[in-house]
């Protein structure tokens, strides 16, 4: 039965073929002649026949299947990439500043989730612990201050307090940004309160508090700077509420011309430096990643210039780069205002120096952030530049680098990375130096501002060198970081090792001259060279 069926099918196929042959003369076509031996082979061997039939149906199916699978994988990969990009953005240290900018006006502090995964969680935790301790202290101070007379504080003590306590200096910033007329309204209160003197008990408590405050108050101030825009409305309301009670609310407006001029110059310098850094950062990375918060904050600082003191400026300068989280609550600020009444440090310059000193370790954090930021920027640029370099190398006719696709992209990438990072860092250094040389005003009379700016420049340079070393050490541990020529040597070695690719074991084609020569060499003896 099966045999008959097969016979009938074969006969049917034959009839079809004969008809086709009769009509189109297929056997006379070149294509058929080309395929004919294979068709006969297939016809002769049932295995070939089965294989060809299977191929006819399976190959398109397989192609479709593979295509669909590849599409699914591509889709998954895209999703994964998107997820990774989201994670990347979340982990991006620049992101830590962005919400602060965005939330400056009305967004409540929501950065805790991101900060939980950030490398600065420890710092935040420490700050919170310190803040809790401070709150306890301030609660104690409040209790004590309630018992004491509110109007006993002298104007001199208020001035000193305002100059020295950075927490206290936060308030005018809020005021200027939110409601400047309010400051005028509080002037009468201030003038009235300047005549008051603080209680001795309050002084004692302030002196006790000094032992703790210089270390962690700065950190809290940093938090405040970041959190300030987010708590803008709340803090304004609180300030309005407290201004009636707080005798030290507007003491920052007390006239101190010399210090204001110095502050202004220092702040201008700092702003310019920050602007330069921002510009360089923007040039180095995508334009959208430039932290607008720095500009805004610097603008706020400029506006506050007339009312701020020296310590505040310097502190604020550093805090702009410190991505400290916003953990301070309005209640804490309320307590803080009370604590400011108790703080009494006479010398503002000494305190500013202390603030600088205490912020030194904290400054490491933005350093790390910038480091990572630059690292990411470098990586992105490398991704863009590496293919060009490879294309260029492959186009070189005699180069040992060309036509070697087996060279790992990592190997090429290292050399390119190092070259790019070096050139970029050099550019960065040159630009930074030129910018700083241009914009650095001759402030011979203000050693602190010079020291601060020099310190910043040195630190930036140090960070660059450290970043380069770190980057190159991760990219190519054994190569010299400052020798791009030497870095190309391993690539060359790899290219040499991939030489066996050119080895071919294929037989000579019969229509080639070499085949004929080989054949002749087999036919004739070595001394039989008389023939043509």
């Amino acid at each position, binding site marked *: 039965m099966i045999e008959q069926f097969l016979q009938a099918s074969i006969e049917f196929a034959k009839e079809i073929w004969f008809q086709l042959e009769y009509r189109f003369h297929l056997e006379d076509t070149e294509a058929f002649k080309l395929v004919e031996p294979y068709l006969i082979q297939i016809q002769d061997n049932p295995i070939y026949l089965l294989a060809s039939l299977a191929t006819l149906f399976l190959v398109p199916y397989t192609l479709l299947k593979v295509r669909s699978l590849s599409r699914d994988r591509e889709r998954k990969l895209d999703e994964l990439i998107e997820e990774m990009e989201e994670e990347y953005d979340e982990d991006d240290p620049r992101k830590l500043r962005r919400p602060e900018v965005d939330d400056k006006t009305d967004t409540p502090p929501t950065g805790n989730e991101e900060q939980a995964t950030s490398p600065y969680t420890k710092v935040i935790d420490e700050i919170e612990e310190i803040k809790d301790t401070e709150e306890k202290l301030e609660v104690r101070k409040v209790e004590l201050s309630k018992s004491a007379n509110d109007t006993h504080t002298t104007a001199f003590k208020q001035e000193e307090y305002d100059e020295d306590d950075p927490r206290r200096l936060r308030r005018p910033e809020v005021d200027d940004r939110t409601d400047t007329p309010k400051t005028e309204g509080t002037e009468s209160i201030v003038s009235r309160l300047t005549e008051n003197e603080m209680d001795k008990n309050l002084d004692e408590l302030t002196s006790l508090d000094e032992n703790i405050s210089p270390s962690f108050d700065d950190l809290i101030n940093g938090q405040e700077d970041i959190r300030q825009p987010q708590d803008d409305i709340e803090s304004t309301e609180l300030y309005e509420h407290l201004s009636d009670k707080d005798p030290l609310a507007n003491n920052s407006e007390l006239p101190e011309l010399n210090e204001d001029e110095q502050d202004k110059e220092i702040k201008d310098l700092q702003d310019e430096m920050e602007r330069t850094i921002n510009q360089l950062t923007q040039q180095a990375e995508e334009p959208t990643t430039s932290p607008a918060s720095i500009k805004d904050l610097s603008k706020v600082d400029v506006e506050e210039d007339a009312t701020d003191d020296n310590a505040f400026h310097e502190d604020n300068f550093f805090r702009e780069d410190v991505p400290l989280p916003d953990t301070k609550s309005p209640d804490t600020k309320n307590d803080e205002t009370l604590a400011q009444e108790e703080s009494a440090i006479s010398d503002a310059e000494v305190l500013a120096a202390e603030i600088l000193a205490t912020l030194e370790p904290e400054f490491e954090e933005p350093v790390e952030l910038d480091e990572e930021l630059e690292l990411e920027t470098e990586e992105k640029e490398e991704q863009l530049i590496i293919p060009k370099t490879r294309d260029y190398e492959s186009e070189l006719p005699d180069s040992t680098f060309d036509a070697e696709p087996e060279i790992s992209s990592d190997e090429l990438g290292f050399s390119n990375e190092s070259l790019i990072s070096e050139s970029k860092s050099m550019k960065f250094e040159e630009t930074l130096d030129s910018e700083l040389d241009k914009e650095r005003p001759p402030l011979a009379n203000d050693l602190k501002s010079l020291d601060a700016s020099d310190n910043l420049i040195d630190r930036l340079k140090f960070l660059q060198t450290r970043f380069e070393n770190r980057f190159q050490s991760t990219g190519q541990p054994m190569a010299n970081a400052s020798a791009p020529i030497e870095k190309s040597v391993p690539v060359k070695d790899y290219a040499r090792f991939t030489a066996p690719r050119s080895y071919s074991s294929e037989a000579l084609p019969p229509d080639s001259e070499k085949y004929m020569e080989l054949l002749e060499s087999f036919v*004739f003896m070595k001394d039989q060279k008389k023939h*043509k």
Partner: protein
Amino acid sequence: MTISVNIIAVGGGKGGIGKSVICTNLAAGMALSGQKVILMDTDFGASNLHALLGIGNPAYGFQDFFTDKVTDPKTLLLDTGISNLKFVSGAGDNPGSANIDSKKIGAIVSFIKNLQADTILLDLGPGTNYNVIDFFNISSQGVVLTTPEITSIMKTFSFIRGTLFRKISQAFQNSPDIQKMVDHSNPDNANMEAYTTELLRSKFQEQFPKHIDQLNTLISSFNPGLVVNRVRNRKDLMAGDNLLKLVKKFLDVDVTYLGYIIESDRVRDSIDEMIPFLIKDPQSKPSENLQQIIGALTNTDLQFVKREGRIFVSKQVRLSSGWEA
């Protein structure tokens, strides 16, 4: 001496390239086309043609030709079961039976030439010894078989050159100086410098100028046919083309390309079944290839069709003069 019968010798330098199989099928095809054909196994000492025809325990063989057992040479012609096809077996291989002296060779040649048939097909043994070459040279149509492998190409070239030089040697049997030049069987007395026809011509021009025309005639009249067996692809066909070029370049011989047989398991199966594949499946591709070769040899267009176990042959004689017979 006038050759009254068409003798086709199928030879090749290398063994195992399918000479016997092709020769058997050629004989079967020619017989089916109406010719009276005698197939002779001249591979003395290693004969197997009878096995390809399914003839077990043949009654007579070539060994009997040299004994007094056979009084009538016609008794050597065995039936094959294929109409118009007779068979002379080389069976009865005894050790040393391949070493036949020239007298016996001469006797066999004489026997062949006296056979009454349209076509006598000689299945030659491998190699280039004179027992093989001399049978090739008595043929009116020599068919050289090769396979695409380079070793087979080399051997086939050597076979053609040896056959040509043997032909020249036999033509100038009475001139020892020429024999030295063309017969290299004894290197001590041979002039080995002429190993191509061009060199031979130049030597003849220098030493035997009066024989140069005869030499040229011998060379020009020597035009065997070529069949490439076990072809798998176009590249394999190129190997046959290379052989033609090589022969033309060094021997100035025009080898006629007769056709090719593709590599097929059907051929192998036919050997196992001891039925010529042309008869087993005349519409298979190897059979069609073989029909083309037969057509080239006989100047006809043949088409074999098998219906209900019977083979029908369509034969059309070509009007144009084809291959010189």
